[in-house]
């Protein structure tokens, strides 16, 4: 095309001019005519000066008006030509359609006067732009769409890359990019979605950056518009390839593709892409996938500390706390960003869940406390500090250290509540701490406050209240609480409440009522099977279903209290048939089974087998207190030579759980049998004091 290349090199400030067919012409004269409203005169002087036909002249004039910012004028000029008719002329004849398939592209292209087609397409595009600027969006979309339709008709075999000049390609790109935006603005949402897909799935020979922009705009539209897109049509589906079925899937796919393209160096980095993906994947609770995406991004794109913290959030959101903590340790290193509040809080929170990490958590929480000036974050820092201290106390080696840590824990939590008097989590934690300290009055107060603050919507609150009441032997009140809670729960989540109800019955010496409750539970399990099929091993849906395994275990426990050993065996078999123990579940659930098995042997007079079972359980989880007590009690019965071992085991249990009544009692027995009557008396005294405040399950079981 003559002139179009050289113009780029000329200075931008010069006078505007037209150029065609080897001639050029200043625009000033034509502009004057246009300003007077004489479109025809302007047109004819242009046709004469540059030997153009009518359409060519009009196209140039329209562009001039558009560039001058006179979009209304441009529209008037464009309306003078019949663009559709012009397009018809460029189209290959209909009959040719099939026969041309086989021929080479060059052949079919020769028949189309390239620059004329280009000129007309550009004119329609500018018409669409003019209409857009005038706010006539639907019409604009119509014109813009006709550009694309025309391109598809004229170039049925795709746009040949080599032969077409950049200008045609540019017009096509612009139209592809503009159309969905116009449709969106015009409120034609479904069409916009179809157009985005057409842009991405047809062969427009778009450059990487343009394609990336469209992909991103489409992803954004899918994520936030609220318009649910219909699935892509069957015609684009290729066997074996992933087809998004809804907005989130399609948006996530597009965003992942963009990140991949960046990683391959095809496009430049757009930080918003990662944020959109963060939003989308967090909504799906798929933060571990997000972590992998973050890892894929080239180093140097993010600040590395920001990246560590983001990754830690991802892992922690996916319950991969070990990975999260390792990343936070890096981020909080003295040389990095030791005072990042969010990292400190998250690290402390993670540590508060593990007694062995609690001391580390205390230091994070203390640091968070010193750096934050904002009141509400002081409250959070104090809360996690209290939690960490409480956990730390559980593994402390000396009585003195333990009690001082416990006091400090309570103090922190009490201070925290001054900052956030109605934080439900905090209320529950305080209630549990006080209950474990046998401060029933305070525990009851906080448990009730928790139920109020949560509107009774959290089961833990009801269960804790019932436990506290049971520790005071107020069984019938506890029963009322459980019944109230049952009223507030849907049937599938009633499992833990019903098991507690059965336990209360046992403590009230009503074993037949307890068995009745279990019968109901088993009926519930049956009903659940019918409506859901056998519960799948899908952890995501497990929590609001009745846990059949636990029901059988509870029933086994009930029968073992009644010394019905045959029934214990049946229940245990049922329970074990439901579970394949993995290393992760073995030392919690598996342990309970082993202990029950031991109790069964013991009840049947098989002391050796029982001993082996308990010993196994202790090996599996050295910190499991109920097992230690059973083992201690059994050893006690095995004669004087076993007494020192029994004493060790029971002391160990008391170190872990100093308020365990049974541990004190059996330790007292050991001392008595060994002839240390003074020590024995002290132990019995402790046991009898604790008996008055023993709950039917440990308080921390609600957390």
């Amino acid at each position, binding site marked *: 095309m*003559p002139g179009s290349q050289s113009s780029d090199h*000329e200075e*931008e400030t010069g006078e*505007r*001019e037209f*150029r065609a067919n080897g001639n*050029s012409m200043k625009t000033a004269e034509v502009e004057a005519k246009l300003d007077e409203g004489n479109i025809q005169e302007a047109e004819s002087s242009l046709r004469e000066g540059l030997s153009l036909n009518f359409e060519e002249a009009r196209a*140039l004039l329209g562009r001039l008006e558009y*560039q001058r910012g006179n979009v209304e004028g441009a529209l008037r000029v464009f309306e003078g030509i019949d663009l559709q008719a012009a397009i018809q002329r460029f189209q290959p004849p209909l009959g040719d359609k099939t026969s041309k398939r086989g021929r080479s592209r060059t052949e079919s292209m020769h028949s189309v006067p390239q620059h004329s087609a280009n000129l007309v397409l550009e004119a329609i595009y500018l018409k669409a*732009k003019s209409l857009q600027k005038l706010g006539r969006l639907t019409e604009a979309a119509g014109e813009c769409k006709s550009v694309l339709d025309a391109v598809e008709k004229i170039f049925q075999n795709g746009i040949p890359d080599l032969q077409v000049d950049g200008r045609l390609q540019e017009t096509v790109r*612009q139209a592809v990019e503009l159309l969905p935006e116009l449709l969106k603005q015009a409120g034609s949402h479904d069409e916009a979605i179809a157009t985005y897909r057409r842009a991405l799935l047809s062969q427009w020979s778009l450059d990487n950056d343009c394609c990336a922009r469209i992909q991103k705009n489409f992803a954004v539209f899918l*994520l*936030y*518009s*609220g318009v649910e897109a219909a699935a892509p049509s069957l015609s*684009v*589906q*290729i066997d*074996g390839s*992933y*087809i*998004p*079925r809804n907005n989130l*899937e399609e948006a*996530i796919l597009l965003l992942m*593709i963009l990140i*991949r393209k960046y990683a391959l160096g095809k496009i430049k980095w757009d*930080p918003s892409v990662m*944020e959109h993906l*963060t*939003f989308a994947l967090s*909504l*799906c*609770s*798929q*933060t571990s996938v997000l972590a992998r995406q973050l890892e894929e991004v080239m180093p140097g794109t993010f600040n590395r500390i920001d990246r560590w913290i*983001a990754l830690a*959030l991802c892992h922690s*959101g996916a319950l991969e706390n070990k990975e999260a903590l390792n990343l936070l340790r890096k981020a909080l290193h003295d040389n990095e960003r030791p005072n990042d509040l969010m990292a400190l*809080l998250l690290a402390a929170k993670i540590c508060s869940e593990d007694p062995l990490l609690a001391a580390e958590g205390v230091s994070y929480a203390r640091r968070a406390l010193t750096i934050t000036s904002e009141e*509400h*974050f002081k409250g959070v820092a104090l809360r996690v500090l209290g939690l960490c201290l409480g956990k730390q106390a559980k593994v402390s080696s000396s009585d003195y250290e333990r009690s001082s840590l416990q006091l400090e824990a309570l103090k922190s939590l009490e201070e925290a509540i001054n900052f*956030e*008097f*109605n934080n439900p989590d905090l209320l529950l934690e305080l209630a549990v701490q006080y209950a474990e300290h046998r401060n029933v009055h305070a525990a009851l107060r906080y448990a009730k406050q928790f*139920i*109020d603050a949560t*509107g*009774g*919507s959290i089961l833990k609150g009801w269960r804790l209240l019932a436990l506290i009441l049971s520790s005071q032997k107020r069984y019938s009140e506890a029963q009322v609480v459980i019944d109230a809670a049952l*009223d507030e729960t*849907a*049937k599938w*989540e009633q499992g833990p409440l019903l098991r507690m109800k059965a336990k209360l019955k046992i403590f009230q010496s009503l074993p037949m009522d307890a068995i009745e409750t279990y019968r109901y539970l088993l*009926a*519930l399990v*049956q009903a659940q099977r*019918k409506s859901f099929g056998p519960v799948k091993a899908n952890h995501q*849906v497990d929590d*609001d279903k009745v846990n059949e395994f636990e029901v059988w275990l509870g029933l086994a426990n009930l029968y073992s209290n009644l010394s019905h050993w045959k029934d214990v065996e049946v229940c245990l078999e049922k329970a074990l048939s439901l579970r394949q123990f993995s290393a992760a579940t073995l030392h919690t659930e598996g342990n309970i089974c082993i202990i029950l098995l031991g109790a069964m042997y013991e009840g049947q007079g098989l002391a050796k087998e029982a001993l082996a079972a308990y010993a196994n359980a202790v090996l599996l989880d050295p910190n499991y207190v109920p097992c230690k007590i059973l083992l201690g009690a059994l050893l006690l019965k095995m004669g004087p030579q076993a007494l020192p071992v029994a004493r060790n085991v029971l002391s160990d249990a008391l170190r872990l759980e100093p308020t365990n009544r049974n541990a004190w009692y059996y330790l007292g027995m050991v001392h008595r049998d060994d002839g240390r009557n003074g020590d024995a008396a002290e132990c019995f005294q402790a046991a009898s004091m604790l008996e008055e405040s023993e709950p039917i399950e440990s308080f921390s079981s609600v957390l």
Partner: protein
Amino acid sequence: MSTPSNSHPSSPTTSPTSPCVDSTSSPTTPAPPPPTITATTTTEAATTSSPTKAQAALESLTSLLPTPVSSLSPTSPPPPAFLLLTSPEISSQISTLLRQPSSGSGDNHLCRWLYDTFHSSDPSLQLIVLRFIPLISGLYLTRVTQHHHRQPLAGFEAILLALYAHETTARNNQPITVTVPDLSHPSIYHESSSPQRNNSTDLNIAVISHSLEPHGTVRSTRRARIVGVALELFFSKIWIMPLESKLDFCEFLEQWSGHQKDGDNNDEDKSGDDEEGKILLPWELLGPCLRILGHCLLGGDTEKEVLLHEKAFRACKSLYYRAMHDVNPKAILAAGSLLKLVKMEKDSKVDEVDYTEIRSSRVISI
């Protein structure tokens, strides 16, 4: 906590089209889905509704409103259902009535009207009920934990349950899931470089919203779920919803999050005051809230909806602080990304390139 007597919708249960099925009594027979509701998942535009139904609804509504509606004439060009959804005059009267302290009671006429209107099974009329879901959810969740002035809520509960029952039927025991793409599998938008194609075995399936159990009453442990589902329904039609409806949502989300103070404003007088209206935000409630919030912040035309954008931004900031407060990683990530996106959008406004604009050149040629 709501006492049993309070949590049972009293008035609507007497209605002949009641969806209330008690699902508690027998564990062996799960309650059947409410029989009277037909699932209509596709919604035609508000204009295609049956004119007589809509007209009847409009007439029964006007008898409840304190001031007569001026733009009401049976033959006026906007169809009644469309008028109901868009008329600011009607909407503001309904909103005012809903905000009154006793509005949520079981015998409240407006609640009854909303309940009946949703049960008309006319999609365009159901939109009108959805339009008030943010306000109803907001008032309901805020009031239900305020013990010092306990207010009757059975009317609100009946409406929320009607929506929940509708969605329970529509989902037909299926959860809403997302299959997270994995780029090592080819997709419609890309080809995969790796040859191995073990189909869908290692794809992550995320449950966005679990399958629904029928509930005849609002039990407190299911409250967040029921409201969450109502908000999911609202989100599914959010693109037709009028601005005020979204404004209501943002107002309550900010309250629910609990930090109404401006971040940089250090007024330390009453640290307790900002806790008023703060509620628990379990994921089943937070998930739909985040999607709606995303729409309010990034789904519309920020220039036309300045007020919404401002309110949504405030709500988002509150939610972000709340997430940090609860040390809730998923919520920190989601709310944090929205805040960053809004900031990026503002910054990019300055030097934004319009790639659809032609390059202005001195030489105009063919």
